[in-house]
């Protein structure tokens, strides 16, 4: 008996000792705590969505149906399989003109949006990589002109709110004859009527998404191009390899990892984007979700589940592709000068082309928004023909009292409108809280994971923190909507901040992990040996050394948060933050207000970005994962 018990007691004590040794290291304790918290905050809301698909929603079709169908009783009093059954098996008969058309529920609510979502995601990936990749190559490896100007303006579309370009597309190409509503600038200026496919639907959504996410591709691919050892290509040149062969066999394989990560990021972001397909009128999973919200609440949750499944799929692909083998070290240290391809006289043509393109994507939206706020009526560009006086107005800005005439609908001008400024304050509050929390947690994760490179638990925590990044924004929003309504914190800043933090931790953890990985462990060990406590090691050694990338980890959540709509729109009332406020004015038809808000938002973000960049050297590039 005693001989059998002794080793067991010994092994228990050994396990206990090992645990004690493990937990006394701060990075392990933090990792353990964050792992548990993140599992709850990430996984639990998702579970609530799945549960929501079989829950009965008062006032929606599943309640009415339940009274008729006694079979659902099998599942108990609060659960029903009706939502799944109806979505996948039933049909809807509707009147189109004089005919009665019978369609399956799934084809309207599921397959069409799903196919559209996948299509825009694929096209957006393709477009973003083509546009961003070509631009990255031109900027880093050729003697293109105006590089500095071009590379900073190129990322404007990403910094600006998503819907900016969509709204601009409308402002440019819409016409009363084709799309209904106001005439756009093209009609006003050139009397050109663009066809419907150009103005609405798959094509413009894909193009706008591609332009919006091209900066991703540019930053990631450009990072590799910039650091790529020119010797790699020179070696091929010495061996008399043709230029095109060098490009396809040497250069392209080296940027493959960057292309892959661009695809993964853009795919899920595009899929979860709400404002762009909303403005440009395409039925996708996200717009469909919002559209069918109350009557078919349970089925909407099924759409969200599908989006989440896509997120998991992307995560698995990401795991497969980024682990090992094909991740090349392109930074070898030597050979500072990279070979520059001479474009010859073409460089002026190419430069001019890109200046023009970026003018459209980066500068024009700002100008258009500004003009819009001075037009007496939306789309009334008559001042171009008849001069400024009499055909422009400052009423949208300067009206100081409540007036119902003049198309103001009782709103004060932007500068005097307390609601707008409250919403701005709300946005700032949420953005600051999110940035502080997400930045801190992300930095800690980056630090702890880099300290435990071999540990499986560290890898798990890292993945858990990264997962929301690959989840479509709307799906995360839905998850927190269902979760928040369940625990009674709907329409509180708490819920917004919670969702924002979970969604934006990856920005911070990625940039922190990247930089911490480059920090030799010996730097900290040198302090451990001298008995310097952990918080002092962090505040006096690690953080000062890595301050640039850590600030980037705070900056990116802040800016993204300020302009976030998709994630937040389900979580609060419309006056809470500025982006939902903007949507409200859009619905009201007060386009001058929404343009004004857009303008202020864009300019604020740009000023802020430049300021932080100049002051600290931090930039959003390193947050996305490029090496800058």
């Amino acid at each position, binding site marked *: 008996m005693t001989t059998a018990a002794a080793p067991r007691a010994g092994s228990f*004590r050994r396990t*206990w000792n090992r645990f*004690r040794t493990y937990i006394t290291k701060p990075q392990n304790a933090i990792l353990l705590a964050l792992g548990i918290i993140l599992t709850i905050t990430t996984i639990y809301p998702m579970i609530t969505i799945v549960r929501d698909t079989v829950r009965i929603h008062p006032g929606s079709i599943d309640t009415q149906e339940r009274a008729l169908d006694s079979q659902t009783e099998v599942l108990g009093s609060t659960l029903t399989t009706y939502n799944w059954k109806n979505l996948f098996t039933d049909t809807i008969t509707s009147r189109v003109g004089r005919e009665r058309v019978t369609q399956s529920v799934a084809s309207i609510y599921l397959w069409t949006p799903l196919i559209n979502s996948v299509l825009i995601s694929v096209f957006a990936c393709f477009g973003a990589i083509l546009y961003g990749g070509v631009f990255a190559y031109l900027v880093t490896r050729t003697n293109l002109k105006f590089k500095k100007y071009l590379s900073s303006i190129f990322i404007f579309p990403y910094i600006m709110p998503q819907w900016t370009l969509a709204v601009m597309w409308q402002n440019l190409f819409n016409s009363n004859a084709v799309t209904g509503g106001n005439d756009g600038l093209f009609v006003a200026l050139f009397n050109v009527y663009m066809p419907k496919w150009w103005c609405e639907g798959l094509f413009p959504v894909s193009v706008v998404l591609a332009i919006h996410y091209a900066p991703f591709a540019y930053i990631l691919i450009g990072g590799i191009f910039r650091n790529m050892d020119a010797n790699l290509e020179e070696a091929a040149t010495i061996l008399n390899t043709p230029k095109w062969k060098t490009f396809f066999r040497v250069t392209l394989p080296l940027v493959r990892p960057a292309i892959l990560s661009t695809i993964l990021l853009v795919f899920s972001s595009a899929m979860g984007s709400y404002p762009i397909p909303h403005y440009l009128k395409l039925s996708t999973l996200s717009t469909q979700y919002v559209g069918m919200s109350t009557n078919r609440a349970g089925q909407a949750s099924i759409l969200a589940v599908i989006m989440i499944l896509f997120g998991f799929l992307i995560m698995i692909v990401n795991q497969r592709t980024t682990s090992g083998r094909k991740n090349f070290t392109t930074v070898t240290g030597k050979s500072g000068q990279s070979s520059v391809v001479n474009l010859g006289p073409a460089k002026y043509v190419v430069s001019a082309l890109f200046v023009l393109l970026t003018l459209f994507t980066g500068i024009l939206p700002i100008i258009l928004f500004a003009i819009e706020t001075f037009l007496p009526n939306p789309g009334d560009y008559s001042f171009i023909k008849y001069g400024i006086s009499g055909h422009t107005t400052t009423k949208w800005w300067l009206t100081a009292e409540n007036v119902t005439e003049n198309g103001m609908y009782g709103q004060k001008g932007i500068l005097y409108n307390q609601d707008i400024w409250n919403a701005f304050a709300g946005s700032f509050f949420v953005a600051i809280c999110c940035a502080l929390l997400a930045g801190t947690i992300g930095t800690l994760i980056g630090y702890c994971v880099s300290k435990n490179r071999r540990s499986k638990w560290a890898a798990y925590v890292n993945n858990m923190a990264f997962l929301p990044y690959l989840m479509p924004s709307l799906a995360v929003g839905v998850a927190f909507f269902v979760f928040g309504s369940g625990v009674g914190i709907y329409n509180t800043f708490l819920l917004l901040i919670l969702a924002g933090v979970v969604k934006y931790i990856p920005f911070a953890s990625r940039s922190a992990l990247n930089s911490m990985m480059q920090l*030799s462990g*010996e*730097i900290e*060990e*040198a302090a451990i*040996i001298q008995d310097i406590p952990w918080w*002092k090691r962090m505040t006096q050694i690690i953080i000062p050394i890595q301050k640039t990338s850590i600030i980037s980890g705070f900056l990116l959540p802040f800016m993204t948060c300020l302009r976030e709509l998709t994630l937040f729109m389900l979580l609060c009332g419309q006056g809470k933050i500025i982006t939902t406020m903007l949507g409200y004015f859009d619905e009201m038809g007060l386009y001058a207000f929404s343009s004004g808000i857009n303008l202020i938002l864009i300019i604020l973000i740009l000023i802020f970005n430049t300021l932080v960049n100049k002051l600290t050297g931090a930039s959003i590039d390193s947050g996305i994962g490029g090496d800058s």
Partner: protein
Amino acid sequence: MARIELTHVTKRWGGFYAVDDLSLLIDDNAFVTLLGPSGCGKTTTLRMIAGLETPTTGKIVIDGVTVFDSDAGINIPANKRRVGFLFQNYALWPNMTVYQNIAFGLSNIREAGLSVTAEGELIRNPEAKGEARKLTKEEIDKIVARVSAIVKIQPFMERYPGELSGGQQQRVAIARTLAPSPRVLFMDEPLSNLDAKLRLEMRSELQRLHLSTGSTFVYVTHDQMEAMTLATRICLIDNGVLQQYDEPLTVYNRPNNTFVADFVGNPAINFMNARGTQQADGSFRVKLLDGYEASFIPNEKVDIDSWYAAAEKDIAAFRAKERPAEKTNKDVPFKYPIATVTDTAEEKRELDRQDWVIGVRPEFIRISEDGPIEGEVFSAMPTGMETTVRIRVGNYLLTGVVFGGVTYKIGQKVRIGFAGDGATLFSRVNGRLVCCGEVRMA
């Protein structure tokens, strides 16, 4: 001051044994080098003693205090072991000036029994009772002044590490390590990032430092020259297993096995396969270099049968040791290199007790008119002080060192022989040293 004792220390990652059952006694005030090829486990050993790595099993005692014991569940963290550690890439904090780098650790000490001598040496008495206190600004200044004088970095106190050369950074790192008066100083390849000339200079400074501080030094290197010149004892590790722990000259002259013989010494030792039996007088009559007859006369008599019995018992004991996981880094006998002109196919036969390896250091190869072996000069590399000559004998190449600037013509016919009683005889079956002695050609 401090004696370090390692008992059956093992570090394992899954089935990989980075350090396999290492027992080592490092005397007070010793200068021990942990030597071995890269990836052999020497750095892991050092980091385990310092507390930066946790051993899987075993026991470590520093200065009479058990700092780690897997059975008793003791694991004093690195920061409480009061040791100094000099890192390979210095690990200077780039955001602090030289002065701050040195003073940062000091400003953090808070304990009873602190005092600083007039020379600026920090005296710590861990047993002292009384109120814990911090060092004053003046005391820190004094200590920093002292250690920076030792390594001569006073002019750079306000500079940042990025503004210093590699050698100066190294000195700052040393000063930072010395400042809190560690009982033991650990160094992990501290000179490997310096250029050749500076390395030589720093090497002699480290030697002086060891003398003046009187602390125990443990030094990791893969450079056998560094180990030979600095250490009072060399601990040679391969594949996680201790190969030999002896004074440098013993390691050089009486290597335990073919691995040690090959690893230590530059140019490397000449190995020759030999086959033959022990004679009644204790000598071995063997054939070597494809047909030359020779006898190996041991310096002290060996009873070969009992030698084999002892060796096999030893090997069996090592293999029988309990290992919780299957070992993935297998212990195959070291494949000693035999230099040849063209690669020859390996002979495929079972080795037996008549197979030997004879090792002859280059300095024992004599080129003379009446040498018994005929060869021709294959290559000659004069450095001025000495000339390294490779001589071709049949298909074999033997390396010799001749002092003085002798010039040889490539292809020139020479005669060589083996001088002195410094040759070594190994068993080819297990690679272990049988005895030292003299190779006499028939």
